[in-house]
């Protein structure tokens, strides 16, 4: 049921944006049902998990077995109290939000969803019984808090506040994660109840305690991490009331309370928590006293109270534990109520600045009385819940100071803590009074803010209910004591029997309570003197400065490291990579030696000749200063490769290599026509020897690698059986093709995807914005191009072998080429189709066939220009690529539909009328897909680097002509005026 409740919150959160579109701000009322239901369920379990015969309710589902992580939840007394607060206040805050936001407020869907989602994760946090699960919920609340603080991201301060809260609490969270793992490993279990039942000990656990407490301290905004909480007040007021007063910031306190029974005795738990807690209590309260913004006043008050709670729940005695939980409840009630009142004041008066507020007491009586009750509870005035809890706390600490009460705290430390707590309480009294005075008093010399309106009943209901709850709890001490006792009973019986109540007789605790009330009252009465003292005492240093300085240092280190390592120069990066290649694998190669390799000269004497040409061509490529020469020489190496493949017994490779080399040469030429003929001279000569050295070393390394790899080979090739399998399973004789379309078709699938990406990349680089898609009307385009040419070239319109031949300028036309193209084009296309179909049994296949078709298209383009290309292939290249990929993928997926494996092939024998018997394997369709992808690639390359570059050239030429015309005209005008 617990998991269901949490899931219900998250589901409601997911639905919230949908509901908010229709219900506007009323969506909060619907969402409030979820936490309200959870509250009711929890309340009904009170008899089981709290009271004299308490036992926990547990629930567990395996989640990540390898980590021993479980979705386990446990409802014990402490979790029950926390869960009631989370769901109860959550429901009230949601109801309140329905009035707080205008119906037309933007971002309601997001906000309501986040708030409900937060409620769910917070519920999960207090119910979790697994250390890792606890951590997951812990970080989730951090994320929700970040998103909610940044509710209005337009303001820079909000963004910064959200980011600051995120950084601080995540830092603490990560520290806690390490602590959690240490505790879990030391205890041998990640179950929280398991850890509590059998607490681990040792040095590692001491470290873990520190890390856990860093998490708790940062989450609960204690010194020195307190600064994020006041900044978080940038969030809307319901968020401040719920996350940053009642729920999330209590997570740290909850973790302290949860582990204190097991770990309070481990050093440095007590010294750390008591010091940090008391310091936070005093600092927060002191700073609350000088705030003018009511929300900030409460925020610093919250910081102070969180310090107080951590001291009480962390000290680890039975009476302190009981009083601490009571204080936890009281604080949630009064602080949430006060924040909600601030929201009402802000709404009604349009400001939260207590220097501008005046006369609200008469205008908002309900809010005023709610504030008075809540503030009195905060100040510890009898008979409210705050007084009952504080009184018991003072009593517990008097015991600690006098005798140690089982904690081993020396009297000096004990008395210091007690004095600190009493002083903090006095300051609390003072700022509580300042709050009520600031918000509601009629101040002389301050005019009432214009347009004050009193809140509707529903708006004021939530704070009023919470404040009344604080009043009622004050009288229920006798009922509260046994309910909370099961938690306190984790500790041994103390010096006095712990109980909550309004009257414990005349004793030191009562005297100290009276002293703090009186001192606070005096401070409030003498508030001007206090303000002067504050100004005098102001310290120049704030914790936030430390935070910012740390961030700056991190940022500076990042800049320096990036600046030193990220040179931004491609050659430098490559040199680094190659030097690493040379030194690391190269050294390994030298150390290992080549091993035993039989060397032989050549398989075939012709290999020596081809190899010699290849080597010479490669070296000349590097020496060439002309682009075209270099490209042609590189082409020689490519054709040489084809011969090597042929001699090796790889006809498919030879065929493909020849085709690819031809295409590559043509593409190079297409691009080079717009680049200058010579490589630009750069002052790189100084580095030439270095580059030469690196090149030579890499070459030697690779040659050595070839030897070592061959020497190291001991196993038989996996492909030994491929020949049989090709025939038996793939039904093809060409083993290479069967490997491509059948045995290793997945690889081919990936490779044609790469081709599609490359083709698209080429097109997008050349066509940038103007789409290459469009209506293909070659007829019209050729017609208009011919017309324009006909006007400038009288002979342009004569009939020609190619339809678009006339669109080229006469000096670029070759009648022989046009005739050959006209005659050969269709033959080449038919040949490519033949290669495609016969590839399964003979050299050929989709890749080679596609390249042949591409060459045919290239011929049309070269002979007749870009209009001729469009005439030959009036389709979008993207369409061809897409269809190809679709056919290949489809062929792969069809077998799934008939119960086969992906890319499985089958043999089809059909008897077709007229054609007779047809026999083929389904992998042919896969090869058709490959074919189309390659044709698409070729088309894209021709359109981009051919037609696209042509058009750029034409345009710039036209622009140039226009400019020249204009200059000419200008000169003429000048001449006329002269």
């Amino acid at each position, binding site marked *: 049921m617990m998991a269901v409740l949490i899931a219900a919150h998250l589901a409601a959160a997911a639905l919230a944006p949908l509901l908010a579109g229709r219900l506007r701000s009323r969506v909060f009322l619907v969402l409030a049902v979820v936490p309200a239901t959870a509250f009711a369920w929890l309340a009904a379990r009170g008899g089981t998990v709290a009271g004299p015969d308490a036992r926990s309710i547990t629930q567990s589902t395996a989640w990540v077995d390898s980590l021993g992580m479980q979705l386990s939840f446990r409802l014990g007394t402490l979790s029950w109290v926390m869960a009631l607060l989370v769901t109860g206040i959550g429901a009230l805050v949601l109801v309140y939000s329905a009035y707080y936001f205008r119906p037309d407020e933007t971002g309601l869907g997001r906000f309501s969803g986040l708030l409900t989602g937060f409620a769910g994760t917070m519920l999960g946090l207090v119910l979790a019984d697994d250390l890792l699960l606890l951590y997951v919920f812990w970080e989730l609340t951090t994320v929700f808090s970040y998103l909610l603080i940044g509710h209005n991201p337009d303001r820079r301060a909000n963004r*910064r506040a959200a980011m600051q809260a995120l950084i601080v609490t995540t830092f603490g969270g990560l520290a806690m994660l390490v602590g959690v793992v240490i505790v879990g490993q030391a205890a041998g279990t990640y179950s929280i109840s398991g850890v509590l039942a059998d607490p681990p000990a040792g040095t590692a656990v001491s470290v873990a305690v520190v890390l856990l407490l860093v998490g708790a301290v940062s989450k609960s905004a204690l010194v020195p991490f307190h600064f994020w909480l*006041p*900044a978080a007040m940038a969030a809307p007021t319901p968020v401040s009331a719920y996350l940053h007063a009642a729920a999330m910031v209590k997570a740290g306190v909850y973790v302290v309370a949860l582990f204190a029974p097991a770990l309070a005795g481990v050093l440095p738990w007590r010294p750390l928590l008591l010091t940090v807690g008391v310091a936070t209590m005093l600092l927060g309260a002191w700073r609350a006293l000088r705030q003018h*913004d009511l929300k900030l006043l409460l925020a610093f008050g919250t910081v102070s109270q969180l310090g107080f709670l951590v001291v009480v729940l962390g000290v680890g005695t039975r009476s302190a534990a009981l009083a601490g939980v009571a204080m936890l409840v009281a604080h949630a009630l009064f602080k949430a109520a006060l924040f909600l009142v601030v929201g009402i004041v802000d709404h009604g008066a349009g400001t939260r*600045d207590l220097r501008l507020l005046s006369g609200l007491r008469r205008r908002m009586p309900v809010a005023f009385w709610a504030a008075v009750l809540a503030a009195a509870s905060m100040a510890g005035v009898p008979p409210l819940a705050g007084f009952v809890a504080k009184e018991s706390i003072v009593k517990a600490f008097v015991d600690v100071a006098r005798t140690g009460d089982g904690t081993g705290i020396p009297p000096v430390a004990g008395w210091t803590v007690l004095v600190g707590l009493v002083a903090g309480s006095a300051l609390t009294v003072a700022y509580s009074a300042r709050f009520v005075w600031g918000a509601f008093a009629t101040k002389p010399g301050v005019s009432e803010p214009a347009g004050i309106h009193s809140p509707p009943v529903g708006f004021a209901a939530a704070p009023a209910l919470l404040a009344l709850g604080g009043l009622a709890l004050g009288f229920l001490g006798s009922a509260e004591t046994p309910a909370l006792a099961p938690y306190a009973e984790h500790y041994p019986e103390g010096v006095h029997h712990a109980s909550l109540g309004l009257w414990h007789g005349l004793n030191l605790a009562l005297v100290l309570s009276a002293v703090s009330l009186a001192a606070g009252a005096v401070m409030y009465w003498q508030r001007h003197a206090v303000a002067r003292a504050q100004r005098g005492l102001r310290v120049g240093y704030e914790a936030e400065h430390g935070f*910012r300085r740390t961030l*700056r240092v991190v*940022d500076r280190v990042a*800049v320096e490291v*990036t*600046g*030193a390592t*990220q040179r*931004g120069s491609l050659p430098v990066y*490559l040199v680094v990579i*190659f030097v690493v290649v040379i030194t690391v694998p190269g050294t390994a190669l030298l150390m290992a030696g080549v091993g035993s390799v*039989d060397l*032989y*000269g*050549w398989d*075939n004497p012709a290999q*020596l000749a081809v190899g010699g040409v*290849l*080597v010479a061509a490669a070296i000349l490529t*590097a020496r060439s200063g002309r682009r075209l020469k270099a*490209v042609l020489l590189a082409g020689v190496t490519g054709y040489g490769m084809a011969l090597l493949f042929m001699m090796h*017994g*790889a006809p*498919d490779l030879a065929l493909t290599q020849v085709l690819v080399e031809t295409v590559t040469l043509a*593409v190079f030429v297409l*691009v080079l026509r717009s680049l200058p003929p010579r*490589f630009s001279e*750069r002052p*790189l000569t100084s580095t030439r020897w270095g*580059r030469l050295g690196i*090149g030579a070393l890499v*070459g*030697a*390394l690779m*040659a050595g*690698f*070839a030897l070592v790899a*061959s020497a190291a080979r001991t196993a038989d090739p996996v*492909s030994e059986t491929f*020949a049989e399998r*090709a025939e038996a399973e793939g039904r093809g004789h*060409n083993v*290479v093709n069967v*490997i491509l379309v059948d045995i*290793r078709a997945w690889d081919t699938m990936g490779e044609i995807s*790469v081709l599609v990406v*490359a083709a698209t*990349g*080429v097109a997008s680089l050349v066509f940038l914005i103007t789409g290459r898609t469009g209506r293909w009307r070659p007829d019209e385009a050729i017609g208009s191009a011919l017309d324009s040419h006909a006007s400038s070239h009288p002979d342009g319109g004569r009939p020609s072998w190619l339809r678009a031949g006339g669109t080229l300028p006469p000096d670029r036309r070759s009648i022989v080429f046009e005739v050959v193209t006209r005659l050969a084009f269709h033959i080449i296309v038919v040949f490519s189709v033949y290669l495609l179909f016969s590839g399964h049994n003979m050299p050929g296949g989709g*890749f080679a066939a596609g*390249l042949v078709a591409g060459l045919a298209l290239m011929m049309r383009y070269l002979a007749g220009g870009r209009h001729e290309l469009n005439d030959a292939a009036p389709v979008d290249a993207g369409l061809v690529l897409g269809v190809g990929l679709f056919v290949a993928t489809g062929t792969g997926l069809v077998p799934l539909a008939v119960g086969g494996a992906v890319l499985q092939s089958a043999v089809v024998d059909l008897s077709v009328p007229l054609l007779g018997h047809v026999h083929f394997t389904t992998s042919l369709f896969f090869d058709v897909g490959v074919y189309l992808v*390659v044709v698409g*690639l070729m088309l894209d390359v021709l359109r981009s*680097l051919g037609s696209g*570059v042509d058009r750029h050239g034409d345009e710039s030429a036209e622009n140039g002509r226009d400019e020249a015309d204009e200059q000419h005209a200008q000169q003429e005008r000048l001449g006329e005026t002269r």
Partner: protein
Amino acid sequence: MSVNVVLVAVVGTLFAVGVYLLLERSLTRVVLGLLLISNGVNVLFLIASGGAGQPPIVGSSAPERMSDPLPQALVLTAIVITLGVTAFLLAMAYRSWQLHEHDEVQDDVEDALIRRRAERDEASSSYDDSAGGTLDERGADPAGESTQDSRDGDGAPIGPEGETP
């Protein structure tokens, strides 16, 4: 296993020249270097696949005399992909020429900017150093203060190309 010396020499040369060209700044030369290295890798495959043999076509040659077909299939796709990559790099070279009138690989401007910041001991451009700004004691959230200014730290503003006016 026995190794063909001619092929090893070809591999060494292709890699040496390829790397030498790759370290240049002219994109055309870089592409040529890449082509040569690709060819070198393909020859490496030939060496690794053992000695020469008959074409791996069932029926026309005996299985035990066939050259190893698997490396051939790998090399075949590698050849075609090299074509795609070459086309892409050439399109880049063309684009670079269109924009800058040369096809040389420039140093990254962003990196130069960061280096300049490091020399000047500045924080990164996204670092927000504006102090205060929290709600502390300044009163509330005055409506209309939706500032989205993106001041660039203190130092002189640096333009997108790294120049300082």
